């Protein structure tokens, strides 16, 4: 077992290392940050000056060495654009991202689970179709458009909600809905199929035979079991949400990680891109590692096999 864990940790570290090299090279071949920090046509000496300040005048391997060395010291470097430590930037944005993702997830489940249950209980009925189509609509409309329509209606026309920014609960509603609606279809679909499966199982049949009221059968016995895979998926999607929120964050001026990364890329802010991607990578690799180890502990066959 120890050996398995050791090997598994080794693989994880290796993939993180590969990720760091990939992102390090990737971000460098696609553009020159200095050309974006000055106006085109700036004097060569100014360009040289900035290059030196950013440490871009050193050879590539030296830059990489420096990057790795400080990474091990827990330092992700300084943003080229903001000129403050990347870690500071990251942790300033993280709470906003988590908050947005959490509320979006809640809304998404609020749409997805009930419509999924309805769809499962009334297969091919009106509610099935209506719920399915509402959930699918969120998936099929570009988020930037949904966001703007919401702003137009709720902010400009009705004047109920603030158009953008962060602060109170009201600021959160539109971005969270836009993001959550996009994910609702996946949760609906999974709830529906998982529910159908549970409803077909022996113990539900037994419960029905015992003459329990249908509402109780569905609401208590079936739902409890059907929701397990949905919650698992929601957990994964929560991580995914933090990353895909860039469009919503841009439309609603929400200060999250997605936009930090997006702006990092547009400005070729190497330390920001490297930092955000590596922290994200570390999180995902860590979660996978934990899951694998847990499975291995539960099911000895897995570790024998590999």
């Amino acid at each position: 077992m120890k050996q398995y864990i050791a090997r598994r940790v080794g693989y994880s570290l290796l993939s993180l290392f590969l990720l760091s090299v990939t992102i390090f090279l990737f971000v460098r071949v696609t553009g020159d940050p200095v050309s974006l920090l000055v106006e085109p046509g700036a004097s060569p000496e100014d360009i040289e000056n900035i290059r030196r300040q950013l440490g871009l005048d050193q050879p590539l391997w030296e830059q990489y060495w420096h990057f790795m060395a400080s990474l091990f010291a827990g330092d992700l470097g300084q943003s080229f654009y903001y000129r403050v430590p990347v870690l500071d930037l990251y942790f300033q944005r993280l709470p906003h991202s988590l908050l947005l993702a959490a509320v979006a997830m809640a809304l998404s489940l609020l749409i997805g689970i009930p419509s999924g249950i309805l769809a499962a209980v009334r297969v091919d009925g009106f509610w099935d179709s209506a719920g399915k189509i509402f959930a699918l609509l969120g998936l099929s409309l570009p988020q930037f458009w949904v966001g703007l329509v919401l702003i137009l209606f709720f902010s400009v026309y009705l004047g109920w909600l603030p158009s953008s920014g962060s602060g109170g609960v009201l600021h959160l509603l539109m971005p969270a809905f836009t993001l959550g609606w996009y994910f609702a279809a996946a949760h609906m679909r999974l709830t529906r199929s998982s529910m159908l499966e549970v409803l077909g199982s022996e113990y539900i049949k037994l419960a029905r035979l015992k003459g329990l009221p249908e509402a109780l059968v569905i609401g208590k016995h079936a739902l409890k079991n059907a929701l397990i895979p949905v919650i698992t998926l929601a957990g994964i999607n929560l991580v995914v949400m933090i990353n895909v929120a860039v469009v919503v964050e841009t439309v609603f001026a929400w200060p999250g990680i997605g936009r930090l990364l997006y702006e990092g890329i547009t400005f070729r802010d190497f330390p920001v891109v490297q930092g955000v991607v590596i922290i994200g990578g570390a999180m995902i690799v860590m979660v996978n590692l934990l899951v694998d180890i847990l499975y291995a502990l539960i099911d000895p066959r897995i570790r024998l096999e590999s």
Partner: protein
Amino acid sequence: MVSLSTTRRGVLGLSTAAMIGATLRATDAAPEGELRVGVHVSLAPTWFDPAETPGIITPFMLLYAMHDAVIKAMPGDPMAPCLAESCTMSPEGLSYALSLRKGVKFHNGEELTAEDVKFSLERYRGAASKSLRDRVANVDIHDPHRLTIRLKEPWPDFLTFYAGASGAGWIVPKKYVEQVGDEGFKKAPIGAGPYRFVSFTPGVELVCEAFDGYWRKKPAIKRLVFKVIPDESTRLAALQRNEIDIAYSIRGELADELLRTPGLAIKPALGSAPYWLYFPEQWDPQSPWHDRRVRQAASFALDRKTMNEALTLGHSRLTGSIFPENFEFYWALPPPAYDPARARKLLAEAGHARGFDAGDYYCDTSYANIGEVALNNLREVGIRVKLRPLERAAFFKAYSEKKLKNIVQGASGAFGNCATRAEAFVAKGGTYVYGSYPDIDELFAEQAVEMDRAKRAATLQRLQQLVHDKAIYAPIWQLAFISGVGPRVDQSGFGLIKGFVYTAPYEDLTLKGKA
């Protein structure tokens, strides 16, 4: 994209004078109210520190609020003495004597002295810092309010750089900076400007509050809030809802909406970045672009006026030059004509009576809207091109690495004068130069060593004339930067300072009914 150029010192216009008088009325009243500005870019803490001013205009948006300069561009005067009462150049041009205004205080209550001015110049590490360091010999302090900046050799452009195109003349408190360090300064900047720093939330907002002790006058508005709103449709919505009072950069049809919404006003400001089409293959005899008539035809094909009306409501300035009109040594020429018939004729003469497939048209994605229109214009006369918008960073990388072909849509708002512009875009070896002409190179070399200003001007103007005659470029316009202003604002501050696209000076801004 401002030019804080020194060359053509404007005469203080009557209207400007009257307006300054009007705003000065409010001096006695205590500042009140809040002005919220919707900003189109993410605010970076590095902009709180004048020492790090890069060669772009955006940081000046904040410098004008939190800091003050020895000499800076002000309404009616691109070189207005501010912290300095006077600045005199010695006859041989080797030193500049500054006499500072007395009783000027930083936000922490300490008095601004010659020590701070010297410290700020020596600490400066932003754009043009090398030029300054190489040429400034020493700063002599005579007493707390008098100092002399001595140069190693005469440098006629010194003030252009010290007071305009850099942050070296913007003063930070020496004692405070030494106490908190560079990092600490960015977290809690202290300056001598009309507004003091209150709080900054990265990616969200910057809050400033009026500094009662500002030497020029007490600001009329109590609080300034800069809110970051990256999407321009959202900025407009926020303005319509009065969540913000000023929205920067509202383009195209969104600007139409500003005109249509009661209470909102449109504030165009002319930046100093010319846009152009460049023909990188003109030095290749095999290319159709080698023929000057083809390049001229492309220029005649562009319906700049209609483009201007559609994209910037007619507020951009059509130009036939890649040199901004407010640059030193600028050679004025009439805006280019729109003449598709003549374009077709020129093409026919060049052997393309039925038009030709001209390949790709490269541009920066953010300005693909210009490209889309130009594409139709070119097609109408028979120049068939394919639009290839590249993401900004990739575009400039490819442009400077000389990888682009056929047509390149470029622009530059870099500081400098006509010589520096020619160096980057026309003369042999320039960053964005794909080829050059011997006569132009000769003129360029000639002016670089010419000490006599008048002769140098003549050479540079001849150079510009050649650039035009050879149709190296097909210039389009100097782009207008359009912003929206909400109903609460009385004096918005747009257009007060020539060539500056943001609102300033902040102490002159007023809200309605609060005077």
